């Protein structure tokens, strides 16, 4: 089995204007057993250390998932996803205490995908989206937590984060590709009124990662795409996209 992988993260125009850096972070790794770990976190712009929180969240989630024994049943997978979110939350809590701050100051979302030869497991806390592909069918695998107001969300740092963990565990046969994206891309990648992925956004991306050669070239091209005028006209937030397809 071959994974075709591409990822990029670019700073939103609004952050450039405010002289802030990119507050999205992502980590990709493959375990010794060949499983793939995809982790994305989006630091809340409203939190004083959102970026620090997001960076730490991706790092510790990666550590946690690199070392655990991967489950063999659906139930055990669900537990593992929740434990990962819990581990991230608790680590951020401890970090906040060390820094003599509140965990809210490190507010960030968490999006996570694990692909093994037998399973695809994903969990989402907060906004953004995790989208799966089976042949040409594109579906949302997890749900974003939304409030009354636009872009109002729950974070992995929120007190009620466990209630808002949305997860999916499926047999790997039913998924050929997986995308994780932060909320900066929601306006162009999702049909927000129906709360569904916009397939004409995803299908060319899947073809792109499968057909193009060169990992570096691909991530360069994806970065350029994410920073292109036509996308920047529609969204000013940081944008991160992680995409994997198997063949």
């Amino acid at each position, binding site marked *: 089995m071959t994974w075709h992988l591409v990822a990029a993260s670019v700073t939103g125009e609004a952050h450039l204007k405010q002289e802030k850096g990119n507050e999205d972070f992502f980590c990709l790794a493959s375990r010794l057993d060949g499983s793939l770990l995809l982790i994305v976190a989006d630091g809340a712009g409203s939190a004083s250390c959102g970026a620090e929180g997001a960076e730490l969240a991706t790092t510790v989630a990666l550590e946690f998932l690199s070392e655990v024994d991967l489950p063999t049943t659906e139930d055990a997978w669900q537990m593992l996803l929740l434990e990962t979110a819990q581990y991230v939350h608790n680590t951020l809590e401890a970090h906040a205490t060390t820094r003599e701050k509140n965990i809210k100051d490190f507010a960030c979302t968490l999006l996570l995908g694990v692909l093994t030869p037998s399973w695809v497991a994903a969990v989402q806390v907060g906004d953004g989206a995790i989208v799966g592909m089976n042949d040409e069918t594109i579906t949302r695998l997890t749900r974003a937590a939304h409030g009354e107001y636009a872009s109002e969300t729950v974070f992995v740092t929120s007190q009620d984060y466990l209630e808002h963990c949305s997860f999916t565990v499926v047999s790997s046969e039913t998924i050929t590709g997986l995308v994780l994206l932060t909320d900066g891309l929601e306006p*162009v990648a999702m049909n927000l*009124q129906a709360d569904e992925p916009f397939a004409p956004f995803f299908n060319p991306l899947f073809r792109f990662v499968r057909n193009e050669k060169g990992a570096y070239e691909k991530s360069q*091209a994806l970065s350029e795409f994410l920073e292109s005028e036509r996308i920047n006209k529609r969204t000013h937030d940081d944008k991160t996209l992680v995409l994997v397809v198997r063949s």
Partner: protein
Amino acid sequence: MNELELVQLAENPDPRAPCLLLLDTSASMSGEPIRALNEGLQTFCRDVLKDELAKRRVEVAIVTFGNGGVQTAQDFVTVDEWTPPTLRSGGSTPLGQALETGLTLLRARKDLYKRAGLQYYRPWVFLITDGEPTDTWQDAAQKAQQEDANKGLLFFAVGVEKAKMDTLSKIAPPQRPPIKLKGLNFADLFLWLSQSQQRVSHSRVGDQLALPPIGWADVST
């Protein structure tokens, strides 16, 4: 760019950031104050227009109290389609009724957003007055404060020149005391409002939004 050129972008309506202005146009605003206020509205419009996203997202509505009683001078409209009015002064200060009218306007707008499936940000209500209400304002103020406490809106009160700050502090929510405008510095006030609305319209949770520093407040009072 190959396949990436074939990527189509979803067409989503912009989320709306409603901003309701409750403006005092009573007789005491005559002369320089009303001129400065009108210019402030122009400044606000010009500054929001500079922001491609904010101009499609920020929606302005204006309720005036004074000249002609209480008037909806502007129902909600996105800034890119807004022509700021030239307000005239005269009459008394029916602030309570204006606040009531404004809250009704806002509720209707929220209903409309929901029916249309539009996302929206927490509305801002911005009250500017230079006097003391000439009608009963207690009920309306209580409603506004309640809605503010329930996170239904953000209510700001600004006093100009001889405004009765004591009364205004009873109208404003306890957690957000009224602000006294420095002289007739409407220009800076509306620039701040524009910058704040731009931040709102780009933001996530409105709650902890870091607003620009208020440079237009008179801190000596």
